[in-house]
């Protein structure tokens, strides 16, 4: 049976943590005094109150979390964070409608980065900071953050970790989850700080540097300017962003091992990393070719824009420094492919994940070989360990779920009258938590405000499912989850 009390208790604690994050924005709002402080103050109050009520409801909870509880908890936490996180937009009147506000917040938390705000430059600093912060919190996972700072608070933390972490292989670097969580958050903080410093050195204002660094390392993509990083039109900033996006798309556990455990060689031996790098380079080469051939860019510009766009899409960040809508259509296909695969498992990136890509391609290769050698035993080996058949089946099931989900969203959007190219890229973009879309109606640089409300709700759900890797949400929607057996 579901341990509702414990779920309430943990949810209450997490809301307090969200309130703490909001207070940061409140401080900023008070510093700049642009009229958004009231909204934040109210939101912090409401969130703390809700957290307290939930904690009271969860008094005397037994500290055992079943697998079922863990799935429900994770899904509910993300929805609750989005619900409370949208209040500053609504109270301040910066976003007029609940649909839009929820969409914006969910897009932030899931590090998608699709926005419905047409003009972000007019917004107060507090609100802009809150948008970036939602992405940063969502980057490694809300509950995972809490495991790092309050180790004892979840009895079945290992199950929660399994429900929220991304990728097919949930690797630990240390016997204990708390230590693992601390190490991963350490890497995350380090990346963010380095990125902010680099941005600042290359000419951003401190406020912009902090915001962009948070959304870059979270591979989110919210920007404080309408033209995203294109606003700066600065080669150094573009390349800094490329480097940090790229490394935020690498498994943090792998980064930790190569940086702090003296196993730098491991990075280049890792099958997933190699696949990720190869995919990035190939896609860039193809796009460079088309830019040179059809759009008459100079070589250095072509490389800069192509690499930026490819890394931005493959890491599912979704920032832009050039309007890709003007490019040749084939480049859109290449970018869509990047969107689909996404970054490495155990990073902040979304998508199908390169680890799965590697395994899926090996399964495919094996099946072809089996046509010729029907009796051969063909292992699927990744980094010298073979992937068991149940894991292979799970992976293929994930693939099917992913595709079905994207196509369902595509279908609904077509029915709602959205342009076809846009529909398919929007579905992919949300499912992989990328952000921009490619197409004729809505370009990558535009906001999504013109979409109908129903579509926005569906896309919000799609983003959440994409972030939690589908099954965590899907299992809750299944009838057998709620049956008492």
């Amino acid at each position, binding site marked *: 049976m579901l341990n509702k009390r414990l779920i309430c208790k943990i949810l209450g604690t997490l809301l307090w943590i969200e309130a703490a994050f909001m207070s940061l924005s409140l401080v900023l709002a008070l510093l700049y005094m642009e009229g958004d402080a009231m909204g934040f103050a109210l939101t912090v109050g409401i969130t703390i109150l809700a957290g307290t009520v939930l904690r009271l409801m969860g008094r005397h909870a037994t500290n055992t979390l079943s697998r079922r509880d863990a799935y429900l908890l994770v899904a509910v936490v993300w929805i609750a964070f989005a619900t409370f996180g949208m209040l500053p937009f609504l109270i301040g009147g910066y976003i007029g409608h609940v649909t839009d506000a929820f969409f914006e917040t969910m897009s932030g938390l899931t590090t998608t980065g699709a926005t419905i705000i047409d003009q972000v430059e007019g917004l107060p600093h507090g609100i802009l900071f809150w948008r970036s912060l939602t992405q940063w919190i969502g980057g490694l996972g809300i509950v995972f953050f809490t495991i790092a700072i309050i180790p004892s608070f979840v009895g079945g933390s290992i199950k929660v970790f399994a429900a929220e972490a991304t990728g097919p292989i949930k690797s630990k670097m240390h*016997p204990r989850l708390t230590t693992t969580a601390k190490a991963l958050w350490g890497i995350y903080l380090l990346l963010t700080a380095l990125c902010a410093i680099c941005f600042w050195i290359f000419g951003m204002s401190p406020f912009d540097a902090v915001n962009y660094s948070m959304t870059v390392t979270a591979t989110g993509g919210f920007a404080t300017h309408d033209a995203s990083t294109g606003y700066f039109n600065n080669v150094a900033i573009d390349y800094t962003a490329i480097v940090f996006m790229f490394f935020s798309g690498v498994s943090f556990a792998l980064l930790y091992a190569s940086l702090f455990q003296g196993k730098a060689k491991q990075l280049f031996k890792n099958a997933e990393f190699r696949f990720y790098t190869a995919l990035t380079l190939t896609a860039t080469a193809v796009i460079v070719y088309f830019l040179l051939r059809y759009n008459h860019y100079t070589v250095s510009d072509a490389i800069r824009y192509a690499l930026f766009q490819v890394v931005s899409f493959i890491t599912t960040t979704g920032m832009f420094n050039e309007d890709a809508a003007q490019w040749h259509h084939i480049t859109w296909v290449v970018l869509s492919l990047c969107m689909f695969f996404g970054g490495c498992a155990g990073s902040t990136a979304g998508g199908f994940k390169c680890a799965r890509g590697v395994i899926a391609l090996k399964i495919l290769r094996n099946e072809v070989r089996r046509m010729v050698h029907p009796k051969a035993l063909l292992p699927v080996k990744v980094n010298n360990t073979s992937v068991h058949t149940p894991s292979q089946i799970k992976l293929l099931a994930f693939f099917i779920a992913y595709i079905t989900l994207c196509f369902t969203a595509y279908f609904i959007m077509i029915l709602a009258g959205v342009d076809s190219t846009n529909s398919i890229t929007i579905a992919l973009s949300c499912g992989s938590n990328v952000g921009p879309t490619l197409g004729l109606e809505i370009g990558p640089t535009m906001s999504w405000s013109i979409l109908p409300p129903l579509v926005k709700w569906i896309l919000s759900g799609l983003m959440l499912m994409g972030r939690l890797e589908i099954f965590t949400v899907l299992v809750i929607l299944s009838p057998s989850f709620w049956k008492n057996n």
Partner: protein
Amino acid sequence: MKVIIVGAGAIGAHLADLFSKIRQDIIVIDEDQEKLERIQADSDLMTIRSSANTPIQSLKDAHVNRADLFIAVTRDENLNLSLCVLAKSMGARQTVAKVENAELSDPQIIDAFRAAGISSIIDPDNLAALDIVNGLKLTWARQRWDVHGGLLTLLGIKVRESCKILGHPFKEIFKPDSPYHVVAIKRNNLTIMPSGDDRLLPGDFVYFMTTRDYVPNMRIIMGKDNYPDVKNVFIVGGGKTAVRVVNMLTHDVKAKIFESDPRRCEELIDLVDTSHVMVINADGRSVANLMEENIKAAQAFVALTGNAEANILACLTAKQLGVRKTIAMIENLDYMDIAGNVDIGTIINKQALTASHIYQMLLDGDVRNMRNLMIVNADVAEFTARPGSRIIRKKVGELDFPSEAELGGLVRDGKGVLVNGETQILPGDIVVVFCHGIEMSRIEKFFI
């Protein structure tokens, strides 16, 4: 503290579970990926898959040089021993190896093992046999645990209609100076930490804390004074454990071992002292065979075949035939609850015994003894009260002690004393704590 466990079988898994509950850094190494995944799904620990060809590489991967405790509990005793020697030479602080052979667990050769780098030897059969022999000495109780060399005694007893204190609220029965306490009750699969309004009901499984001298009186209070002492014991299944048991029995106890395999019977007669042990080549589950050997004359019945279901059924049969004391060996932990409910008497589980024995080694030097009582799903531990610790600041009744835990008794100046609300614990006292569903660390805080 870093613990490395090699072997993810029943013992390894049980140990990993125990250790992860007290938040230690645990690494489990095994060849079987599926076993590892099962453990990893439930407990907070790291697993490393080894292959038969690369045991040393997996030790390196686990950073055995930084291990505080290295436990080898694979099926292969030679592998266990050699892994421990390797681990020690690679820098592990303490090593424990599980063995099967009785000769290897002989206390006299432990020095030879220590010289080779093996700190302790664990022999599950030996532990099981000890438990069974202790059980046979005490026919009317299911479990007996002597705390601190017998100064205090914990008794697990099934409550029958003949119990003298049946149905009375505890606040009426127990005065502060009562010579015994109820520390826990198991009723309908639930564990109750008793309060003054609770009472005993027939069918309860109850844990008493008492002093050694008072143990015979407990027998009268529980209405079990008509339980005879064991002079004849029937043992079904002539495995290794059975041999250990009969060799530990005193010569005034006659034993009959039922073994259906004739070849094993031939072996058995060489292994046991036939002056008081009789080996019978017959199936011990058959009523006819039992009657033929005159089971009416037996006071105890021990089922030690490798099959848990057979052991449970054999014990039930023996109960029907009038044997009061039955003991069943059950390898499968999932059967524990059922076995407790169907009333088959004492239950022996080698995995749990071994795991709690090793667990006890790990716990701080101040925790002297630790035992997992399987039926109530609770833990008993001994702590030493240090000067300046929280436990000695107030009287027991005024302490803010968690309700999931119960102070049973204490040992002071070599004498066992029971604890009540008026007791003032002094530095140096060894306190016995009974806890259920609470982390040991929360209790430990009171003693540091």
